């Protein structure tokens, strides 16, 4: 048993934490989301230079990390810094590209390209198999038609990794250049201040080689992404908890720090208890990532369920304990809280994963 970070992990975490503390912040994040590109080009280059993206991939495919605890360490630190750059999309797209043996991964790792996954559709909810987008095989190429929903950082991407259904019914994964004719996007900001877009694919022609593999590629990518945002939530919750503790210590009401209220003390204790449980859930998921498929699925659903319920509780309690000031956009707190809440709407919410856990347990 060893629950400490490796030296490599620790040093990246330290550098990344320092970077986001000293050279990043909510103002930069918000400005980036408002711009069409949806991210901050300089920040992105710096993250790549720090090795953040490379840490997500193994040395066999050109990275210098890539195990589950590497991913966990990176994303927890990103969460604590509320970094709004397209690292999560890079993880998903890169996981597909790595598995497919694509050399496009190099340009992802060094920060020159951005690639994003676009698996979910307007009526698919959280189901990767519910794919209405079609891929029609033609003599020289594929024609892709359909729509993809809430694609984070789509407008910044050079490459979209999409799922589409072939004529024989199987779902496959394709690499689609964002600049291809027939690709249109409607961009917007999400409630948690990230850039996203609805993507339309109308008669988009891609070469035969654009088909990267079956839907299992998308599933593995989503597994990695699920672990990643669970870890991100740990960082967010730590920030929220610390900010709330600080507020309880310093905010005076009726002549005393509001932290003197025993009910708030015990609620903070509850938060700490549940956060430790949540951390254990994420560790369990990371430990299961390279194991058998069923154990991995169980551990990921357990983690996402735990994170969904705990992050919501921590966000709501942080706002409540801050009172009116916690309701304001101006305070950093609200931004962390919103990201913590929206994590329950990516890759399946806590109900979705509790159901999946029950089904898998019964099998």
């Amino acid at each position, binding site marked *: 048993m060893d629950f400490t970070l490796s030296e490599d992990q620790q040093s990246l975490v330290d550098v990344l934490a320092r970077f986001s503390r000293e050279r990043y912040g909510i103002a930069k994040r918000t400005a980036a989301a408002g711009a069409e590109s949806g991210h901050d080009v300089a920040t992105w280059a710096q993250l790549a230079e720090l090795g953040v993206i490379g840490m997500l991939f193994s040395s066999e495919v050109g990275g210098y990390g890539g195990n589950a605890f590497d991913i966990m360490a990176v994303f927890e630190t990103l969460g604590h810094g509320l970094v709004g750059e397209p690292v999560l999309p890079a993880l998903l797209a890169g996981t597909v590209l790595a598995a497919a043996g694509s050399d496009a991964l190099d340009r992802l790792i060094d920060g020159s390209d951005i690639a994003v996954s676009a698996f*979910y559709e*307007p*009526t698919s*909810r*959280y*189901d990767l198999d519910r794919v209405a987008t079609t891929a029609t095989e033609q003599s020289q190429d594929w024609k892709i038609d359909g729509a993809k*929903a*809430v694609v984070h950082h789509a407008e910044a991407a050079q490459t979209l990794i999409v799922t589409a259904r072939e004529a024989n019914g199987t779902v496959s994964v394709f690499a689609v250049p964002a600049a291809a004719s027939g690709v249109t996007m*409607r961009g*917007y*900001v*999400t*409630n*948690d201040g990230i850039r*996203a877009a*609805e993507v339309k694919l109308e008669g988009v022609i891609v070469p035969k080689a654009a088909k990267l593999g079956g839907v299992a590629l998308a599933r593995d990518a989503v597994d990695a992404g699920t672990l990643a945002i669970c870890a991100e939530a740990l960082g967010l919750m730590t920030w929220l908890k610390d900010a709330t503790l600080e507020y309880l210590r310093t*905010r*005076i*009401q*009726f002549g005393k720090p509001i932290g003197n*209220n025993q*009910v*708030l003390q015990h609620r903070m204790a509850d938060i700490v208890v549940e956060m430790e449980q949540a951390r254990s859930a994420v560790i369990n998921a990371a430990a299961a990532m390279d194991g058998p498929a069923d154990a991995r699925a169980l551990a990921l659903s357990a983690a996402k369920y735990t994170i969904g319920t705990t992050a*919501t509780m921590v966000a*709501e309690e942080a*706002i*409540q304990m801050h*009172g*009116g000031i*916690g*309701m*304001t*956009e*101006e305070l950093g707190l*609200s931004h962390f*809280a*919103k990201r913590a*809440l*929206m994590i*329950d*709407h*990516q890759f399946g*919410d806590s*109900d979705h994963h*509790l*159901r999946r856990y029950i089904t898998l347990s019964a099998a």
Partner: protein
Amino acid sequence: MDLSYTPEETQFRDEVRAFLDEALPQRLSDKVRDGSTLSKAEVEEWQAILSARGWLATHWPREYGGTGWNVVERFIFDVESSRANAPSIIPFGLSMLAPVLIKFGSDAQKERWLPRMLDGEDWWCQGYSEPGAGSDLANVRTTAVRDGDHYVVNGQKTWTTMAQHANMIFCLVRTDSSGKPQEGISFLLVDMTSPGVEVRPIITLDGDHEVNEVFFKDVRVPVENLVGEEGLGWTYAKYLLTYERTTMAGIGASRAALERLREIAQAEQSDGKPLIEDLLFAMRVARADIALKNLETTTMRVVAATAQGGSTGAQSSILKIKGTELRQEISALTRRAVGAYAQPFLPEREGANEAPVGPDYAVAATPTYLNLRKLSIYGGSNEIQKNIMTKAILGL
């Protein structure tokens, strides 16, 4: 025991329903149902319709142009209006200032200000909270110093709801600092067009502009705008706080939101069937439904007790706590129901009419959820309500 309305009450309810059916513009109720923010003009439109029917001032005696309704009639009107997704009546003038003026104001004040409320000439806002005071309302630092026929006001108010639309504000101001915090507070009416008044928006976490900071710099207010006696402002403010508060349960709004939630869960597909047929989700909806039915009866029990002259003191804390928890829970379920489309944010711009991303009903799910976090914070936070209950009911 008998849960049903009397024949007269039933007739009244039918009358209210018929009126809402006929007079409430669909355009407005759709916006309320979808959680969109109403413009000033839209609010005024609905208040004018109510005023024309004589139903705007539900708390006032008939002699001042009010409805003269008893507590049961007011309850029925509130619930039916909320369930029909009618816009809320802006309460600051009609429900909060007016009772104070009627009880403590001078004849001249009543004659001047009450008719203007009915005509929609004034838009009032409330200047109680100050920065850093939170639930400690007696912590008033805005000062009013007498200078001839005027008070000179300096200081700052915050969380001032819809101050951006208002031309008048009623304020707690400090006219004397020598005694206990509750003493030396006065109740003053201030024209917001006076020099030295500045309103700055507070954007809340849902991206909305609902509340404001209001700054006073050497604002001159005629002494005839003092309500009652100097130094008794705290008494008047407290009168409002103990005033009938059965609407705090918000059961009409929760019922409307729950019905909307059912529609959404019918439309959303999960695992190839409507989300409402998913037992886990159905369980959450059922629990909220049962809690709401219970709360509806709890509210009616308090209304009935009030009608018989009972006090609503600690009972109103129960309604406030349970009512706000339930509305928040329903908003959380709605957010859950819309799935991934809880994420897109579409800022509402006056005049702009952007097509929604995802289904219509999804647009406001997250902003509404976020906005309603306020319910357990304001109006005396739910923690404060439990402190009140401890004293009142538990004797601890």
